[in-house]
């Protein structure tokens, strides 16, 4: 699979902070690449340098194997997290305005269908919901039929239904062979949409791979949750790691059956028990030492 974007030793500093400290990664064509990290990790700075909004202090960025030229902006689509729409224009007028800024243009009917805008075309931008606005912003990012699309936290602030709606559109974009670079705070979103993930913290990439690779490489296993904290003597010498997680018991185990047998042997009430696999969020907390903050 050919590489569409390659970032080598990227460095970007601001007067009081070095936001990106020698970041390197490459993105194969046609995949969804997730860049994850808490606020201040440097992921937005990294993306904005790639998008040519900021200049880098050092490092190299290659698009299709060459430094980005004037055609880069013609060939990529960008959706920012916080963009207001022009006032007093309808959805269709906004889409056409941005589409006309490009030499290469996507088919307007195809755009409308892909982003499910049929019902909104004549509606004033000021009268659409958050989810509808994100779909329009996504359509604007696709207005030039880009090969590479940057989506910066596209589902932040959306309700679960609108979020799933947008995931479906991202899947459609992927099916059309486009490469997607996604930044997100939602681990579930990254796990569902991304083929490869890079986790950033303090300006560096601390882990990279497919979601499964990351989980296998760093930790496998299962989490058992109990809605209570049993008496301390009942947990004395318990063979697996356990934590008091805000009044709940959390056990990290690689053997669910044996763990449950041990809990039953010790007479611990399992009526509030839930079991789930180790996921990206657990991995993220382990790697960065802090929760993802929206």
């Amino acid at each position, binding site marked *: 699979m050919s590489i569409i974007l390659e970032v080598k030793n990227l460095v970007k500093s601001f007067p009081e902070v070095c936001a990106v400290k020698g970041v390197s990664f490459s993105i194969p064509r046609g995949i969804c690449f997730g860049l994850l990290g808490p606020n201040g990790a440097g992921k937005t700075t990294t993306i904005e340098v790639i998008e040519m909004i900021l200049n880098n202090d050092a490092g190299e960025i290659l698009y299709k194997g060459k430094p980005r030229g004037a055609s880069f902006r013609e060939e990529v689509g960008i959706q920012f997290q916080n963009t207001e729409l022009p006032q007093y224009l309808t959805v269709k007028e906004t889409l056409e*305005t941005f589409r006309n800024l490009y030499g290469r243009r996507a088919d307007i009917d195809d755009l409308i269908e892909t982003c499910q805008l049929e019902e909104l075309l004549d509606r004033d931008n000021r009268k659409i919901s958050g989810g509808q606005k994100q779909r329009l912003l996504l359509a604007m990012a696709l207005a030039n039929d880009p090969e590479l699309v940057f989506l910066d936290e596209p589902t932040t602030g959306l309700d679960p239904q609108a979020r799933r709606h947008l995931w479906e559109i991202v899947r459609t974009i992927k099916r059309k062979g486009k490469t997607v670079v996604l930044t997100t705070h939602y681990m579930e979103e990254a796990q569902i949409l991304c083929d490869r993930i890079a986790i950033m913290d303090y300006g560096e990439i601390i882990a990279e791979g497919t979601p499964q690779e990351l989980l296998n490489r760093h930790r496998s296993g299962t989490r058992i949750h109990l809605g209570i904290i049993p008496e301390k003597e009942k947990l004395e010498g318990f063979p697996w790691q356990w934590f008091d997680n805000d009044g709940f018991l959390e056990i990290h185990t690689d053997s669910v059956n044996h763990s449950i047998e041990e809990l039953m042997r010790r007479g611990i009430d399992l009526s509030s028990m839930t079991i789930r696999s180790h996921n990206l969020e657990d991995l993220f907390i382990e790697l960065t030492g802090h929760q993802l903050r929206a």
Partner: protein
Amino acid sequence: MIKRIWTLFVARNREFIRDRSAFGWNIAFPFLIVLGFGLMFGQDRQVLYKAGIVYAPAQQVRGRGVDNSLTKEPLAEQQIDAFKKTRYVEYITFPSQEHALKTLAHHRIDILINPSTGRYWVNATSPKGYIAERLLLAAGTDSGPAFIRQTITGRETPYIEWLFPGILGMNMMFSALFGVGYVVVRYRKNGVLKRMSVTPLRPWEFLTAQIISRMFLLLGTTAVVYIGCAMIFGFHCKGSYLTMLFIFALGGFSMISLGLLVSSRSSSEEFAGGILNLITWPMMFLSEVWFSLEGANPWVKKISLAFPLTHMIDGVRKVMNDGAGMSDLKYHIIALSAMSLLFMAAGSMLFKWQRE
């Protein structure tokens, strides 16, 4: 390139026209002002009047005083002395009656008195001239009035025709500066400019579209207001309409460029609003929108020449009131062109897509 500029031009026009409050205000505001002044004919309530007095240079003393011993008409001098005791009247001396009459015809003074001939002149249509005349006559001695009333020869400029270019110019100034300055700052603040910056759109294409759109709207609304007022008040333009349109267009371009310069970097509407107010208020008072600067300190007159509004209003008044042609307006055209170039060059160099 053309397609991008055209697209933004159309989008901006749609925004402006659909923003009914702003659009309506741009049309209604000058109508209301002119209508208000129309209703005030003959009922002027202003308190400051300017009286011109013709004295030969030998009769002048330093400043604006009058050497009474040299005047030929003692009775007239008595009346002038009494008239000068009237508060809120400013006295301006003129060495030449011809120049003074021209100044009166342009409403830069409200009454002209020549003590050596015992005559005074007023504009029949000037509400301020009417009051000034009443004040002069009221200052007469027991021996009866010492002056004979004269009306200026030829077609005098009705007061409202003198005022009208000022009102139109002021409206254009607000529309150009706030309409462009505020919109660009708002676009930058809410991220619309940032979004545009990642398309192939170049800064000069964006700025050109903003200028063309605002020029189109400015000249369109000005034409509507001009035609409307001309129909209501029966205005008469002595010069060419094309010349007047050219001066309006050049003045509008200059002020739009100034708006783009103000908005070239800021992302704070409050800050931009403060700067725009700082620019518009002195322009409104020193560019002879409402009153003439005749008799003002020379440094005030010099400052007023730095404003594009001064050159636009003066140029349009010369076309409308005096029938001036392009060659008579060279000075204003050069000044407005130079300012436009300066503002555009600085605005383009300083322009930033994003907030700092």
